[in-house]
């Protein structure tokens, strides 16, 4: 028997790692992977809560998250390719035209 809060804490740590990755990584692709990491952390918490409440809908939600993540990955990577094609860099610090 493992306390479910352990699972949740693990999920939280993964999410935090994702956030940290977003903050410190410069490569767009890696930043994007950090987002996936966050989503994975959330998935774990979904499954844990599904076990907590004995409700399968939690697991169904993981499925939805995955679908959205896959769609997001497809579009995101396409955007990255487009960005790379025009700016010839993957460094997120240099892709900062979105300002006043």
């Amino acid at each position, binding site marked *: *028997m*493992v*306390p*479910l*809060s*352990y*699972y*949740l*804490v*693990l999920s*939280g740590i*993964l999410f*935090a*790692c*994702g*956030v*940290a*990755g977003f*903050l*410190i*990584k*410069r*490569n767009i*692709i*890696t930043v*994007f*992977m*950090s987002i*996936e990491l966050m989503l*994975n952390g959330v*998935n*774990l918490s979904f*499954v*844990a809560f*599904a*076990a*907590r409440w004995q409700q*399968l*809908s939690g*697991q*169904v939600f*993981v*499925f*939805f998250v*995955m*679908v959205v*993540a*896959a*769609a997001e*990955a*497809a*579009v995101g990577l*396409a955007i*990255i*390719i487009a960005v790379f*094609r025009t700016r010839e860099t993957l*460094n*997120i*610090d*240099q892709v900062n035209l979105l300002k006043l």
Partner: protein
Amino acid sequence: MLHLILFSVFGVICVAGAVNLLVQRHPINSALSLVVVMGALAVEFLLLGAEFVAAIQVIVYAGAVMVLFVFVIMLLNAGEEERTSGSKVAYLIGIPGALAGTVIVCWALLQHANAGSAAIGALPGHPRDIALLLFHQFLMPFEVTSILVLIAIMGAVVLAARPESTQRSRKED
């Protein structure tokens, strides 16, 4: 006990993979660490009984999404990360903020959450049950998601396609 050991082992692998993702400077290493994280997470799902989710996790995430990442890294020939310091805010405010949020959540979870505990396979997620939920209770969201995916496919194709001007010039060559 076995449960705890397995949980700890794969939990540690998870966290190690996640930290490795942060530490590694080459994107392909980060990507592979993420694959490891996902694989270990799949095992955690299995421990909670979500076998279908675990399988999908491996197939979709590790087998498709991450392959796509690796593919793009290879395609763009992404090299070592440059250490530019474009954002002071990220370090001065973001990191402490993220840390604080995590600590608060973990503290609250460990000290005050009565989430109970789970045995191995706490909630068996057979494909059949999940399918029944998915195609009855969640049919509408399911269809909406399918439309989302369709749009995403089209968006990806449009975005990643070469601009028409270069296409034409290539044909003329």
